[in-house]
């Protein structure tokens, strides 16, 4: 069975700088796949190449068998591939509700949108409480929830999450990962980039370890958790 998302030998970068040097990975439908690695390894760049914000220089990016390389970002979103970028980029001047509604920008089915709004508020009750507040006044954790909720409003088949736990209090980190697991159980495929390798590998099915623009390791998540090199370098166990 073809994977939902597949990258084959992708090269990409910014200007003269090449960040991805032949990245290949697969995400099967219904899975949580995590991409871990050091800062600057190219994890965020990988996500941005998939969602079209950076153009791949060579290689293939296949989504449901279709190449994404020539597509514009807004077209990619319309196909059901949604990214939650790093740093919880919410629209600070708009209200929580307006942010969520903007998530459904490419959709035409009013009834479906309303239904999804309900579901998101169910998933994140805090957002319902703060529906009328300007997004910029929310705390970091709430903004992260809003960013994920906004991405969910596009009813994605595949959700790309870039460091969702960055800068969050430990209690919120647990909550976010619980939400990610729940989303996956409801049918969303997830590609998760994380610094917090511990938590990420605990909820993922499979994992990739990225180093200086290449995939260094690929395995089932559980196996990576037990892998001694991974433990030393990324999980902080000596």
């Amino acid at each position, binding site marked *: 069975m073809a994977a939902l998302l597949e990258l084959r030998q992708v090269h990409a970068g910014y200007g003269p700088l090449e960040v991805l040097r032949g990245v290949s990975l697969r995400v099967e439908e219904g899975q949580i796949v995590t991409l871990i690695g*050091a*800062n*600057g390894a190219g994890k965020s760049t990988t996500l941005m190449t998939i969602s079209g914000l950076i153009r791949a220089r060579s290689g293939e990016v296949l989504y449901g068998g279709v190449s994404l390389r020539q597509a514009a970002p807004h077209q990619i979103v319309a196909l059901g591939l949604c990214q939650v970028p790093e*740093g919880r980029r919410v629209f600070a001047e708009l209200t929580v509700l307006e942010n969520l509604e903007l998530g459904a920008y490419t959709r035409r089915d009013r009834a479906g949108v309303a239904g999804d709004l309900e579901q998101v508020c169910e998933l994140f009750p805090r957002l319902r409480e703060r529906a009328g507040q300007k997004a910029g*006044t*929310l*705390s*970091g*954790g*709430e903004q992260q929830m809003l960013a994920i909720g906004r991405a969910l409003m596009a009813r994605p088949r595949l959700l790309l999450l870039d*460091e969702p736990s*960055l*800068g*969050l*209090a*430990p*209690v*919120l*980190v*647990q*909550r976010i990962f619980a939400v990610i697991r729940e989303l996956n159980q409801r049918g969303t495929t997830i590609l998760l980039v994380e*610094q917090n*390798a511990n938590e990420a590998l605990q909820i993922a099915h499979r994992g990739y370890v990225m180093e200086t623009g290449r995939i260094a390791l690929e395995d089932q998540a559980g196996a990576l958790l037990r892998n001694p090199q991974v433990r030393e*370098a*990324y*999980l*902080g166990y000596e």
Partner: protein
Amino acid sequence: MRDPAHILEAEGITVQFGGVRAVAGVSLAIREGSITALIGPNGAGKTTFFNALTRLVQPTSGRLRFVAAEGEVELTTMPPDHIARAGIARTFQNIRLFTDLSVLDNVKVGLHGRTRGGFWRALAGNRAEEQRLTGAALEYLDFVGLAQREAEQSDSLSYGEQRKLEIARALACGPRLLLLDEPAAGMNPQETQALVELIRRIRRAGVTILLIEHDMKLVMRISDFVYVLDHGELIAQGEPALVQKDARVIEAYLGPQYRPPAGEAN
């Protein structure tokens, strides 16, 4: 000062923005030479407290006594650009380096408050002073582990290196108190360990440290004392081992699944 061992005493600091009380009546004290951590959920007011300390925002009420080199000063009435000269320097949550400047120049800016020379000296070339500045800046870069990188553009450094540069710049201000705002954010365990060592080196050099951090392993490993903020108020304070068992802290911040790191020595 109530206690001569304290380098900073905050009394009833309140910061109000319109109807929102970001910081509500926080009183805390920092011992000279210690490493103190300020933890708490997002939106608890930690960064706002830092901003009040450095006068980026004006506290609505309260007092801040600080032991500067020349004696005790009241921070709430001090103009913001005197804070650095009084001996408080900080880093920022989102790294705020001077992007157009080289690595070396970034650190040299930190030396600004400790040097002299305005328009006329500039026109005269001021070579001796500039060489002295370069030497001092290189020492700071060496101290944080960025030696040999001085000529590069600051935004070509990796994330972890940029954080180090920001710390070097703050150290160049010659502070007695260093405020670090989430220094370990986005770092993997290896980088975090290097940061721990750097912070210890800074303390050995005689600088008192107050840091905001979410990485509990780091906090446990390095802090002498911890203050916990929630919704602008202090809800707990004490040594790290005690604070992490505090029920209020667990509920508001650490979460029920939090497991204290095993066998961590301070």
